[in-house]
């Protein structure tokens, strides 16, 4: 993750655009309309072009995510070890589908390409912390722990 960096510290060159968007997302969790406009003004790039860059890259979020972002790894190793079952079990437990956030803004569920921990497949990450070798029981235990803490 990029270090927290303020817009005004950056050189006004388009090659810093992605970095600027990453900084905003790091600070606020997503890129709001307001920030999009700020960035567009700062770099003198039309908002539509900034939106074009945002929508191109999977990392950027345009809506506010929940407190806990659950990333289900669907890399090849995880996939053959049942990543889709993991995803379904989370959906059943939390009532949200892939890409959704629950009504209390607590959990966001997303599928990611690969977390690079293939030997622990299937894995998920919750706010970046990886949980591996999951079965239904251990998965539900983790989810319920987070629910309780919240």
């Amino acid at each position, binding site marked *: 993750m990029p270090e927290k960096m303020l817009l005004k510290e950056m050189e006004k060159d388009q090659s810093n655009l*992605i970095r600027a968007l*990453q900084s905003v997302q790091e600070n606020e969790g997503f890129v709001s309309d307001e920030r999009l406009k700020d960035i567009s003004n700062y770099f003198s790039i039309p908002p539509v072009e900034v939106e074009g860059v945002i929508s191109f890259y999977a990392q950027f979020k345009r809506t506010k995510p929940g407190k806990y972002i659950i990333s289900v790894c669907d890399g090849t190793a995880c*996939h053959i070890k049942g990543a889709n079952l993991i995803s379904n079990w989370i959906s059943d437990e939390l009532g949200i589908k892939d890409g959704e956030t629950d009504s209390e803004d607590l959990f966001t569920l997303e599928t990611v*390409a690969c977390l690079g*921990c*293939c*030997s622990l*497949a299937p894995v998920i990450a919750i706010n970046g912390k*990886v949980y591996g070798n999951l079965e239904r029981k251990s998965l539900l235990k983790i989810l319920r722990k987070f629910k309780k803490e919240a």
Partner: protein
Amino acid sequence: MIKRIKIGTGSCGVAAGADEVFDFFSENIKDIELVEVGCIGHCYAEPIIEVETDKGSIFYEKVEPKKEFLEKILNLENSSRLQVGGNRTKKEFLKVTELAGKIDPVSYDEYKSNSGYNGLAKALLMKPEEVVEQVKISGLRGRGGGGFPTGLKWSFLAAQKDEEKVLICNADEGDPGAFMDRSMMESVPHQVMEGMLIAAHATGASSIFIYVRAEYPLAIKNLKIAIEDIIKYKINHINGRKIFIKIKEGAGAFVCGEETAMINSLEGKRGTPRFRPPFPTDKGYKGHPTLINNVETFANIPIILREGGTKYAKLGTKNSKGTKLFALAGDLKYSGLVEVPMGITIGEIVYEIGGAVKGEVKAVQIGGPSGGCIPAEHFDTPVDYDSLTSLGAIMGSGGLIVIGNNRCMVETARYFLDFTARESCGKCTFCRIGTTRMLETLERITAGDGCEEDITFLQDLGDKIKKGSLCGLGQTAPNPVISTIRYYKDEYLRHVNEKQCNALECNALVDVFIDKENCIECGLCIKNCPIDAISDDFIVDNSKCTRCNSCIEVCPKNTISRIPGGGISE
């Protein structure tokens, strides 16, 4: 006597709990130095601890943050010592990863005292063209998957007259199931940097960019520390020139692994590929001549300079020299990062290093979404660029997934197409629409709605996508489908003609069945079914059931199973 204790805190180690182990050990050990190191590649045994003694090193596996475990280690007891499975020690050849997991990744001094930066020192005594010549002699080919001769590529950039030339390290390891580059950057960041600095000398480049996936925070952190030291010790001052070094973080787009797309992304644009020519070495980043090499390619360079191109070229096959890293995972016992000499057979990797059981393996998937499947009957094929291509797969960046007999190949192909269809940047019609059409067709087949013509359609469309796409993503996207049809056409035919999935993976083609003879009527399945598809007398309503496997997982008697679809209709 214990000299120091090393804990592997690379990403896989941390995921397995190495942080907790480190914290516990540092609280409880006062008089022995404790060091965090990278990855030694034995992921199956994480968290791993290496105890350096005056009589050599002892490794412990699956270490727990507990007093008993700590005592066991301090007493150098025999239990819990790392058991290297199979013939791995004999079959592996550690060259590029020799230092990985053995040294403190961010210690400049430790890298230096292990012959680090000797390659650069040697290169600086040579003329740039002599360095390029050594790389040519070594026979090194691009490790990112393409296999283009590295020395030749360097000579293209070296020939450019532009005052500003750019080097880019491709560390956007987007292949699902691949983690070689992550491991190298986390474990030996200085080695990667040394390779780049040698390249800067050889080609006359003035700037270095490292394009890393943002999903690799530890790799970024370690590279940053390494770069700080490089600047501090002025290692980036080459023949009076000061090389500019910058890390750029990717933002999650597979296509950015393609050279021209990566350049667009570095410029802050959408990462779509450009037409070639002009090739990046003529006109790349901001119009300057640009050279892009992969992390593993750069990590090989210091070794080539240290031992000389001729010696390096002694290892490997006629057209593929040196070693290759593979991220080994899937249906096998010992997953991890392995380094093998070119020319080793796939079977040796899968069975002797990976510990997979003969007869239980159906195939390996090699090269990720751009690669293909190689069935077990071809496991005597040597690992080199040309042999793998002739089988319909590619060397790829090094993801090697072992697929067991109980997996469905049609579903595997669908999985990869789902990935490429989503990652297609949309520039070329054949890639954008073609991959989506292929995915729809595969979804139809796995849903039991396919027909035999669908298979010919897939082959035909796959061929057109290959021809009609600008970049490597589109040109290779059909590979997983084409190669599974080539070797597993019977599975496709069974799906379309008999509506059966032998592996019982395709949900629409299986039913869930409770064997009432052994059922103890505990009710756990009913309680855990999310959609109430199980009746009070323990019969599954398969028209309602979503095949989520919840009941199968909770059943204490293993009486619930997936069966071929239609098997229980009365």
